[in-house]
């Protein structure tokens, strides 16, 4: 039997995931008087995609950018923080609060002005308004962790959350697992509100080197569990039918392409886009990887690849600056690799490739308070589907969620959770996995899942009705086998088992929604529906599951203003 903690952990507001969004939510809610618990699968000091740092913070500062925020909003819309899959009203809310968060972060001790003044660089088209504040995020997780403690939030490290408990149509608690010891321990939480900040959905699709599942652009712990929990709880998800792709170095997959000072070039060193010619600048680098991330695949397929990141025009000062910037971003491993292996980027270009779908910036639908469609449930960060902003988006909507939740929890009472049937169902499932002596190691279904997703709900190849149909069937088969065969020898493996089950749920939702969109749009390319249905322009597909497990899809207008 799975060990179950006697005590039910009780709080007003449960934060699921101690990344940027989660810690900001915790700080804001605790400052507003709420009793807050942060449940983090690893340790908030070094967890998630911001574990080692970040160096670009989307930010609008009126004294620098001018009083007309709309000009910045328009520019954001053109680049990676905007695009066709965000609600404009939420992007406006994001921009309105970025300076406030920058000031808060400075107060926590995060170095937002490493050169002494505000400097804007990267992720932008040359000659246009720059809006990414260059900062040094190396210490960000430690500073945010301390700020959350100072605000009075209780941090529970090595505790994963597996289910949001719902009663009478609103959040009542959660089911977690403490993995700090060798034997996992099921933990029940009673809360009035919760926020999902579990990051993007990596490991659902295979990446460039499928043998090494953890060779990934973002933190491999972020597997889309937040997406799955929201779906199972009945909250609405948005845009998960549209695959996102990303780009970066091969075969050492690492995000942070905006920190490279180089030009995407063909084998002769010539740029593949007209944005930057000659020597790349620190200010803009090359935005190609942001605005045309599939160029590295597209040009392989049309016979004009490969495409490289070309830094050979840089002088020594620029190279040293880039080394420093990579450290700020938390990707210093790349330069350490160059040093260890004797790669001189002033002489050799680095080949870039496309990263397969990471389920980033698709997921829970939120409003201007970061509320989901389920009362008491909030979301922020990479698992949100209708606003981006990446790091800044996580921090701003985390903060807004925390503030909103602090008020919400004053208006509702705690509900008992022991009688919610899901508690016993999960106890039985956990016990079955933990008690099994001979069975399937988590990597068995994890690799099969990646194959199924890549073959039948692909992000980089055409999709069809038949592919989606079999995908849904194959995933159901895989899930059934997992229920009867998964086993774990310790809490680490137990965590991985639960991750796989979450991923299968998310994969099913991707296939169901992809099947529903009977047109081609973005990376959702249907071989059987090659046209783009113009009546669906500026419409988002919203999906939720009802209590019986049935999917419901609808298109709703994109918020354009």
């Amino acid at each position, binding site marked *: 039997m799975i060990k179950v903690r006697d005590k039910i952990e009780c709080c007003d507001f449960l934060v699921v995931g101690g990344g940027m969004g989660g810690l900001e939510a915790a700080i804001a809610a605790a400052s507003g008087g709420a009793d807050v618990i942060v449940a983090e699968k*690893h*340790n908030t*000091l*070094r*967890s*998630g995609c911001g*574990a*080692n740092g970040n160096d670009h913070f989307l930010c609008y500062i009126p004294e620098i950018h001018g009083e007309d925020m709309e000009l910045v909003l328009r520019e954001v819309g053109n680049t990676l923080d905007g695009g066709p899959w965000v609600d404009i009203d939420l992007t406006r809310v994001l921009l309105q609060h970025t300076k406030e968060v920058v000031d808060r972060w400075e107060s926590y001790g995060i170095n937002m002005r490493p050169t002494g003044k505000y400097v804007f660089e990267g992720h932008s088209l040359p000659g246009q308004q720059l809006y990414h504040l260059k900062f040094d995020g190396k210490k960000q997780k430690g500073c945010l962790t301390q700020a959350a403690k100072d605000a009075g939030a209780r941090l529970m*490290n090595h505790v994963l959350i597996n289910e949001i408990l719902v009663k009478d149509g609103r959040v009542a608690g959660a089911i977690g697992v403490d*993995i700090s010891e060798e034997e996992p321990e099921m933990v029940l939480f009673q809360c009035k509100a919760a926020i999902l900040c579990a990051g993007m959905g990596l490991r659902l699709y295979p990446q460039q*080197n499928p*043998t*090494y*599942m*953890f*060779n*990934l652009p973002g*933190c*491999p*712990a972020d597997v889309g569990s937040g997406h799955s929990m929201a779906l199972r709880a009945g909250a609405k998800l948005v845009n998960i039918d549209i695959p996102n792709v990303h780009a970066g*170095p*091969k*075969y*050492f*997959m690492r995000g942070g392409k905006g920190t490279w000072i180089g030009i995407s*070039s063909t*084998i*002769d*060193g*010539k740029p593949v886009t007209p944005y930057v010619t000659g020597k790349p600048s620190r200010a803009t680098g090359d935005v190609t990887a942001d605005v045309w991330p599939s160029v590295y695949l597209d040009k392989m397929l049309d016979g004009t690849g*490969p495409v*490289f990141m*070309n830094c*050979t025009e840089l002088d020594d000062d620029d190279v040293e600056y880039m080394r420093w910037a990579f450290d700020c971003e*938390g990707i*210093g*491993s*790349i330069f*350490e*690799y*160059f040093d*260890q*292996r004797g*790669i001189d*980027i002033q*002489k*050799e*270009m*680095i*080949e870039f490739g496309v990263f397969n779908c990471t389920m980033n910036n698709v997921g829970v639908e939120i409003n201007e308070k970061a509320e989901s469609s389920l009362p008491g449930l909030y979301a922020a960060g990479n698992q949100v589907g209708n606003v981006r902003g990446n790091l800044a988006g996580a921090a701003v909507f985390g903060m807004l969620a925390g503030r909103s939740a602090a008020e919400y929890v004053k208006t509702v009472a705690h509900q008992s959770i022991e009688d919610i049937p899901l508690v016993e169902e999960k106890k039985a499932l956990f016990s079955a996995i933990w008690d099994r002596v001979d069975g399937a190691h988590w990597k068995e279904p994890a690799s099969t899942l990646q194959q199924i997703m890549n073959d039948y709900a692909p992000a980089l190849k055409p999709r069809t009705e038949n592919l989606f149909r079999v995908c849904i069937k194959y995933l159901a088969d895989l899930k059934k086998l997992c229920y009867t065969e998964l086993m774990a020898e310790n809490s*680490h493996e137990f*965590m991985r088992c639960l991750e796989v089950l979450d991923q299968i749920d998310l994969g099913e939702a991707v296939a169901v929604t992809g099947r529903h969109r009977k047109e081609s749009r973005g990376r959702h390319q249907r071989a059987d529906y090659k046209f783009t249905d113009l009546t669906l322009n500026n419409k988002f597909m919203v999906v939720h599951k009802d209590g019986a497990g049935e999917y419901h899809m609808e298109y709703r207008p994109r918020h354009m203003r």
Partner: protein
Amino acid sequence: MPPIIDRNKCVACGFCAEICPVDCLYLDKAAKKLIVRYGDECWHCGACKQDCPKGAITMRYPLSHMMLSFPPDKEVAK
């Protein structure tokens, strides 16, 4: 697989295992030994190396993660 622990420097304080973002390190409390238990799950973020109070950790980048470098082909450019 990475990271590499210098046994002469490591005091088995366990802090690297505590903060590893993917839980690939393990402190065997009975044996007072830090173990790279799931090396193939390492993200190569280097947090363990940065936070080790004794400087006992170095990173090794596996050949599976080889970076692909190539000099600009000036002949083609002509």
